[in-house]
């Protein structure tokens, strides 16, 4: 039996629960696989390290991790690899020396562009926008924001990014930061929250403060959690990839590597069951599909799935 640990940033987060669904699906499909779904309660690197230590002791075959910190986890994951455990990262990556493969939910640049585009689409005349991110150490968010900033001047010259703040994926902090943004930038037209926790908090603030129509909240959101804000108009549209597919793919890849059915090297192609296959780039990372956009027309349907 192959034991694959799906380590997430923190337990309880709807996004990761959905990913776990996909992971279990993959396990069933593969047959002889046991998926251990685990993670710390608070999104910290130390919490994940303790978990990695106990996974090493349990002799799991593979660890698929969405990292809270790209660097701090490296020593622990290196130790795991030395003890013969296959390590991949997914969603939020680990520095290359700490994993064999990294699975991006989507292309980083594409996400960066998408989150800006989501705001720009509804701002024909341009205006001030601000970003409300997760924790300041989240690898994936930082990469997306970086990419977004890069495309701004050329593709969206009228959009003016006034601030980036961090809500730490904590509803209270996110709420306060959103309020702070609204208070400090009276001309704010949109809040972009590329995190499922932050986007809900921001939309709630906009709803509470009667700013629907004045400020558009957008970013990455789980349809099931976010439906009401599309319905009430606090948000026009949000995007996300399919977390179920992401979890499914992570387990598939981990399984292929752990059972030596595939090898992690630049250029290699790994098949991932019903999702298709991915090809590794020269940092051994690969990206899945483009983010999918949700708006009034389709949110109803997707909110029933994840």
């Amino acid at each position, binding site marked *: 039996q192959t034991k694959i640990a799906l380590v997430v940033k923190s337990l309880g987060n709807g996004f990761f629960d959905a990913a776990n669904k996909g992971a279990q699906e993959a396990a069933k499909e593969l047959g002889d696989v046991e998926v251990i779904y685990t993670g710390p*309660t608070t999104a910290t690197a*130390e*919490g994940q390290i303790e978990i990695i230590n106990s996974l090493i002791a349990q002799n799991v075959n593979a660890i698929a991790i969405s990292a809270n910190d790209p660097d*701090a986890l490296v020593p622990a994951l290196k130790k795991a690899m030395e003890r013969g455990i296959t390590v991949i990262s997914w969603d939020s990556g680990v520095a290359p020396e700490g994993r064999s493969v990294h699975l991006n939910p989507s292309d980083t640049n594409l996400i960066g562009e998408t989150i800006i585009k989501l705001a720009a689409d509804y701002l024909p005349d341009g205006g001030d926008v601000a970003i409300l991110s997760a924790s*300041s150490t989240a690898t994936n968010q*930082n990469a997306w924001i970086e990419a977004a900033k890069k495309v701004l001047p050329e593709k969206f010259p009228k959009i003016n990014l006034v601030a980036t703040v961090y809500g730490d994926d904590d509803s209270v902090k996110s709420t306060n930061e959103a309020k702070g943004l609204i208070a400090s930038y009276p001309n704010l037209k949109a809040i972009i929250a590329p995190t499922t926790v932050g986007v809900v908090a921001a939309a709630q603030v906009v709803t509470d403060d009667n700013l629907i129509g004045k400020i558009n909240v957008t970013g990455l959101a789980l349809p099931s959690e976010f439906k009401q804000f599309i319905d009430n108009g606090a948000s026009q549209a949000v995007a996300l990839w399919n977390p179920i597919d992401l979890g499914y793919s992570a387990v598939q890849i981990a399984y292929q590597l752990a059972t030596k059915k595939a090898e992690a090297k630049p250029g290699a192609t790994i098949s991932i069951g019903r999702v298709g296959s991915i090809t590794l780039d020269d940092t051994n990372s690969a990206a899945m599909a483009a983010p999918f956009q949700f708006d009034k027309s389709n949110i109803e349907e997707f909110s029933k799935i994840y």
Partner: protein
Amino acid sequence: MNDQTPATRHVPDRLDNPLRSALFSWPSLLLVVAVAIFVANSLASPYFLSPWSLSDATFNFTEKALIALAMALLIISGEIDLSVAAIIALASTAMGFALQFGIDTPGLVAIGIGTGLLCGAFNGFLVTRLGLPSIVVTIGTMSLFRGISFIVLGDQAYKGYPESFAFFGQGYVWWVVSFEFVLFLAAAAIYYVVLHRTSFGRRIFVIGNNATAAQFSGVRVERVKFVLFCLTGLMAGIASVLLTSRLGSTRPSIAQGWELEVITMVVLGGVSILGGAGSIVGVVIAAFIMGLVTFGLGLLNVPGIVMSIFIGLLLIVVIALPIVYRMVRK
């Protein structure tokens, strides 16, 4: 004097049997608990009883336990330091900052420990010189120290520590015996001697029991307390070196919430939170207990937050046990 007074009577040194009282002491109770948990763990998980597992298990608590040693002394003296976790963050930031200027391993270690010492001295200054309650002061410095890390680092991280620096948090001295663990055992031995075998240790107990009487007896209360705050800062600095080395990087958010875990360790070890009583042996056993419980449950993939229920229950039950026993017997 009065001639009817009977001849001076002999007052014996002690009436109780030291062996017997040691047998019924807090550390023995803890030891029983520790052994029980050890046995339970080995029954519950087939992976537990392997040398590498046990060695890995020690990493989960040695850094906290190092701080707990000094914290025990501080709490016995009637003070407390809630800023230790923030000191770890600040000391780590200082090391990362120094790293940017190409300072090598010995220098980094010195800076980490030195920063811890300075932070401890700052706490000590506020508490002893300005006469402020330590629990309040250290709630403030807890935000201040970590806040400074955030100011310096923001959303950035320091990484790229030299290879040789990795030894402190990841190195092994002999086979499965890690450097961290050896350091902890050595520190525990030193703290044991300091607290129980020196006049400095005696003064700590006296201060914790009655600081006024201690002062009236010529104990330099403020100075002793200041030294204890410095020691606690120093140990937090050492823990910071170990943790930074183990993580190989610095973020301002490291070691979040450790202060309560350290204090739990100390209290579980039988140190009276009101001051004046406690032992290093108890604290060491308590550290092992907490390490064993978390690692054992980790092997069963129990989420950390559920483990904390066990720790919380353990704390209350172990402390309540002797009290309930006494009540029932009466």
